[in-house]
């Protein structure tokens, strides 16, 4: 008997991962999944219809009123997607591994030949597939904004890429909490703690830094352009760790500077290269996702002592 290494290819994992199959089978069984999807879409449509009607009654068809309505509808759907990604995706995965521990099915799985990476990927894919389904289902609603003229293709594509990347990272973060913690309750608390921190904690830190440095400016009088440029870079980098901030800032830069990537700005007479935060966001979140994935696999592989 030889010891064949069981390294599943990505394709194999995607196509016939037993964990994904099992999870999807039980999640899609019965009507619950479809009821949730239907209610979600109905709710979103109703909301958008109300916005549209409000603008129609105030400014009539055509003109800038429709454009504004398009913008607002796009933003509303985006807000819903952000909420889904930051708070629903980790909740889906936070119970994935700890639930197996609580139900005493984890040991059964760990004595099979299922590799830790296949297990982690299977759990990730099954949780993500539903979140991604909800996100993609709302894209047609967003496209209404095209018809109204308030939205460019770049805005739609980049926002959806950011949302999807964030979905993967937040789902993996939930999975990591689930692998670390013994109970689902602890995993969910840790997952929400982390999600709340990157969503509201980092802006809070940014505000604090601004206040402190602002105070420093006042006491020292003027600061050099280098200090100010450095602080600007710091702010951009910090905002690239935050999904709403990245979306808002990238949109603002697109509107004001008319660029998706770089632009120059004059700081105290010096012209400085600045950047739109979304590529950095993708880079940082992809890196975090990779590290979280490795950590998950390491935790699942570990033999308890």
């Amino acid at each position, binding site marked *: 008997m030889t010891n064949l290494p069981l390294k599943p290819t990505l394709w194999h994992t995607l196509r016939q991962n037993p964990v994904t199959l099992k999870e999807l089978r039980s999640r899609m069984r019965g009507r619950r999944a479809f009821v949730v999807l239907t209610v979600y879409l109905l709710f979103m449509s109703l909301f958008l219809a109300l916005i549209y009607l409000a603008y129609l009654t105030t400014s009539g068809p055509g003109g800038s009123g429709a454009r504004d309505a398009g913008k607002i509808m796009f933003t509303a759907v985006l807000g819903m997607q952000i909420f889904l990604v930051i708070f629903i995706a980790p909740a889906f995965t936070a119970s994935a591994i700890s639930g197996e521990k609580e139900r005493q099915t984890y*040991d059964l799985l760990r004595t099979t030949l*299922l590799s830790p990476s296949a297990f982690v990927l299977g759990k990730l894919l099954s949780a993500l597939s539903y979140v991604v389904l909800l996100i993609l289902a709302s894209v047609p609603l967003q496209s209404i904004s095209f018809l109204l003229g308030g939205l460019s293709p770049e805005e739609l594509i980049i926002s959806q890429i950011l949302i999807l990347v964030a979905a993967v990272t937040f789902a993996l973060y939930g999975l990591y909490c689930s692998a670390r913690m013994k109970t689902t309750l602890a995993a969910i608390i840790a997952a929400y703690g982390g999600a709340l921190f990157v969503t509201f904690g980092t802006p809070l830190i940014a505000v604090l830094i601004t206040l402190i440095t602002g105070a420093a400016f006042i006491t020292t009088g003027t600061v050099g352009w280098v200090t100010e440029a450095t602080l600007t870079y710091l702010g951009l980098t910090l905002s690239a760790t935050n999904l709403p901030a990245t979306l808002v800032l990238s949109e603002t830069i697109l509107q004001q500077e008319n660029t998706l990537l770089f632009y120059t700005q004059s700081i105290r007479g010096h012209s400085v290269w600045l950047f739109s935060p979304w590529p950095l966001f993708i880079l940082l979140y992809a890196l975090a996702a990779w590290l979280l994935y490795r950590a998950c696999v390491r935790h699942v592989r570990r033999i308890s002592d």
Partner: protein
Amino acid sequence: MSNIIEIEGLSKRYGDLVALNDLNLTIDQGAVVGFIGPNGAGKTTTMRILTTLLQPSSGTARVAGYDVAQNPDAVRRAIGYMPDFFGVYDDMKVWEYLDFFAACYDIPPATRHGMIDDLLGLVDLGHKKEQYVEGLSRGMKQRLCLARTLTHDPQLLILDEPASGLDPRARIEMRELLRELQNMGKTIFFSSHILSEIADVCTSIAILEAGNLVAHGNIEQIRRQLRANRTIHVRLLGEREPLVNLLQTSPGVVHLQTDDLPADSLRFDFSGDDVALSELIQTAVSHHIPLVSFREEEHDLEDVFLQLTKGVVN
């Protein structure tokens, strides 16, 4: 390869607690070994180390020739494990449950269908194939879990208290099932608290007490090991004093008892062999002691168990 399990100097400590103390044990291919011990003896700990779920503090364990720490995947391929406590997934049909685990063992989909039917037939759950697992009774779940351990046709089954929580009839059925599996050529290593119940299925037993192996061998060997101190009952006509005086001076007689017995009876423990015992009877007869009966107390298996595990577990 005749030893499918080879355990050498295996120890497991949880802080100060020694759950397993320098365990040495080998199990032959094809054997059915009962692993007996009171609560907390370390049976589950041993099995979790063998099934690659737990890291030993020291020592080595090899299964089917593979070291459990160095080569866990090869070990997992060779064993089917049924834990003492286990859960089942909700929202899953009986056949899906087996299909899922077969997939986890990389069994190709084409061969799974026939195999699932065979396994369900073996554990007598064929009629439950399309039902949800959560709707099964405890005994059925236990049988389903046993079927699950067989999906990849392992050589060795490690079953942690497979009969716990079952009613008497289901316990008998479980025993029959073990016998059937033995006939299929499986080596079975299973734990239990009740020695008498499993004695007739086992080819050998290993008795564990507070992390120490106190006996290992077939049932007869273990019985003989105990006969070092057999208990003899004697009844005689009239007074027992002459016999008491005789026995007090005879070699091999220990722990003579007359209290709480009728005036014509006594009991003693004897450490000699059959020859010495026969000589003792002849001496009594030659002293004209009127014996009515002279019999050795049958140790039943529970006594064996209790004697071997004198409550060392705290």
